[in-house]
């Protein structure tokens, strides 16, 4: 089972998981390199949380191979867990324990916690550790799990939609923490459906749909899959742009011209716009939203 190269902190191949008669994961492949922030994107119910639980040995796989930090997460769970930290998507805490008690308990189970780091993180996330977990909001429960995980010195951080309950200010703090982790050479697997977050933070992206990874690569690589949007202000109608290869949906409204263009069409389109007396030109690469929609709007995919 252990076929991982040393550069891969997560190596999953052909992973299958059934819940009763429902197949939740249908041959999922996922590789995360050491030292990268890897975004794991997909809509609700695509299998992100199930994959993370399998990577933690909380669920048992029904097929395929899995290696986390070079170990088998099912049979060597404790050894794997010693070297990783996890933030669940739905953080459930013991209602009678204070936030500080939960953080210290999880820290001790991990073999110790960095007190200076703990204090810094509590301040950063503006979390009151003396409150009982029963009285925390969803966002504050999430912060407790985040502080516990980020104060742990781990090689790999598994974060399941970590910002789902955080306000924009805290989200910014969280992003800073992830950047720090990357700078320190740690690996992060960040599951999310918040695309802008992944776009800012991640080195590589895997897109999961309906239990299988449909696309994986750097954001640049994935952008080749969709078209750049070009808009320009022109003096006169550009000649023959509809006929150019690689140029789509060209429209002219008054003096505003817009079109979508793939890699082949960029040079001829620019030439045509130039001869049409363009006075301004804006082009932007596809956002992850567009990328995402192009996969999930296909037949069979969720909207």
């Amino acid at each position, binding site marked *: 089972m252990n076929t991982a190269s040393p550069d891969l902190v997560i190596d999953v191949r052909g992973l299958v998981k059934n819940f009763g008669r429902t197949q939740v994961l249908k041959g999922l492949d996922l590789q995360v390199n050491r030292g990268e922030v890897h975004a794991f994107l997909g809509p609700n119910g695509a299998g992100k949380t199930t994959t993370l*639980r399998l990577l*933690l*040995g*909380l*669920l*048992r796989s029904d097929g395929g191979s899995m290696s986390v930090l070079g170990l088998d997460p099912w049979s060597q*769970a*404790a*050894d794997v*867990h*010693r070297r*990783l*930290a*996890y933030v*669940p998507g*739905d*953080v*459930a*805490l*013991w*209602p*009678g*324990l*204070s936030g*500080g*008690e*939960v*953080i*210290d*308990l*999880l820290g*001790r*189970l*991990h*073999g110790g916690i960095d007190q200076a780091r703990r204090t810094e993180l509590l301040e950063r996330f503006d979390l009151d*550790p*003396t*409150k*009982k977990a*029963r*009285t925390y909001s969803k966002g504050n429960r999430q912060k407790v*799990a985040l502080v516990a995980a980020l104060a742990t010195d781990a090689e790999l951080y*598994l974060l399941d939609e970590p910002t789902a309950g955080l306000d924009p200010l805290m989200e910014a703090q969280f992003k800073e923490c992830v950047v720090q982790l990357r700078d320190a050479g740690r690996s992060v697997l960040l599951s999310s459906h918040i695309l802008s977050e992944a776009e800012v933070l991640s080195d590589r992206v895997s897109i999961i749909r309906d239990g299988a990874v449909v696309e994986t690569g750097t954001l640049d690589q994935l952008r080749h899959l969709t078209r750049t949007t070009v808009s320009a202000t022109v003096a006169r109608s550009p000649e023959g742009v509809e006929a150019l290869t690689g140029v789509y949906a060209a429209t002219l409204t008054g003096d505003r011209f817009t079109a979508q263009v793939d890699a082949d069409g960029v040079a001829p389109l620019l030439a045509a716009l130039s001869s049409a007396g363009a006075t301004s030109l804006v082009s932007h690469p596809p956002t992850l939203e567009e990328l995402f929609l192009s996969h999930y709007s296909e037949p069979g995919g969720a909207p």
Partner: protein
Amino acid sequence: MTGTWPLVRLALRRDRILLPAWIIGLSLMVASSVTATRDLYPTRESLTSAAETINATAALVALYGKVYDPTSLGAISLIKLTAFGAAIVGIIFVFIVIRHTRAEEESGRLELIGAGAVGRAAPLTASLIVSMGASVVLGVLTALGLGAAGLAWGGAFAFGLSWALAGIVFSAIAAVAAQAMTSARAAIGVGVAAVGAAYALRAVGDLGDADPGLLSWLSPVGWSQQIRPFAGDRWWIAAVPIVATAVLVPIAYSLRARRDLGSGLVPERGGPALGTIGGVMGLAWRLQRGLFIAWALGSALMGMVLGSVAHTIAGLLNSPEMAKFFEALGGSQGLTTMFLAAEIGILGSLVGAYAIAAASRLRSEETAGHVELLLSTPATRVRWATSHLAFACVGSAIIIVITGSAIGLAHGLAIGDVGGQVPRLFAASAGQVPAALVIAGIVMLLFGVAPRMVVGAWGLLVAFIVLGEFGSLWQLPQWALDVSPFAHSPRLPGGEVDPGQLALLTGVAAVLIAVGLVAWRRRDLRP
């Protein structure tokens, strides 16, 4: 009140198996007790003599109450089910009410429902309609069962009424507890403590010179008894629990109106900023200590009470009917010793309830999602499971021997032999430990193999207790009686110790726990 009916239907849907099972089981138990008692005391003389023996024995009056008409077959055959039965009914309805109010609120599901077209008090109203409706159904079915068994219809309905009112009053008490406490666990604790207090109050009241004493009139269990089914059928007593309910229910509503969703009466205090919980074992102690300490203190107290009355049973040896009564309970020696052995036996079964409550934490921690967080650390599944299992096993053993020693201390003080009685009853109670381990093992097995069935352990415990209390009365075959682990516990003091039986119980417990642990290691987390 908007949205009450959909919530009633939801509650009935969730309880569609549990509720009918309880109601039918309890009403069948009542009817069959009558038939069995009729066979045991075929003549009027034997019946009267048995009843008079009970009334003359303080320990039995404390346990079951008085037989208010020694000539009545109904009154004597239901003696074990009047006060004791009302307490059991009370506990069941405490669970039902809390399950649909505070437990739902704590889980956050009520928030989902509360956002819909549902009035703020609708969940409370719905749970009271379900529990009080079920109380009435239980009363009617019980009455029909008694009538069908050949007893007078008047008494039959009076007895049904006494149970229905027990269900209704304790539902109202539970409704108040659900509004006042912030956790379902605490609310259940308050409700069950109220049942226990009601039972104890009437025990002391029934022993008083007045008939009954003042304390019995303060006890909802006492009210059910004082209806005196088949011994006067005093219907007017029903007014007392009805008035109490009419007072308690508005209190529950006004508490609900004054508080926010999720909060209780007592404001939440803060906790320490720095934690001292060192690991899974420390966490288990933190989560289990309340239950353990409450049980240890409560059962030690009960042991003191029972131990102090045990000697009063002596001096009645000349009554053949009494001896026959105890014969049916399974003893064969001197009456005091027999009484002590019977109490130690009951103790063993009751601590089975603690074993289930403690071991069931495994499942509730899993469904609450806490295990996911814990098991993402280097803590292993087996270490975590054994942390809670340790409380179920070691905790049960400690509670049993503390209670046994308390019985011995009180009995020793009463007869001036503390030095002899404490070790004697300590040793006697220790004989009950292996059966409690089997109960803990059953929970562990269910948790590993069929986690959704863990709650079924309660049903098994009730079945074991019913087998022990009524099995020989019903003349069931030996193999059926042997199904219960308690049937294999030694009858101490006074009986023989069969090391083979103790080894068998311990071995069964070890196998159940081992299989459960292996299955738990191999299964998915199922929140």
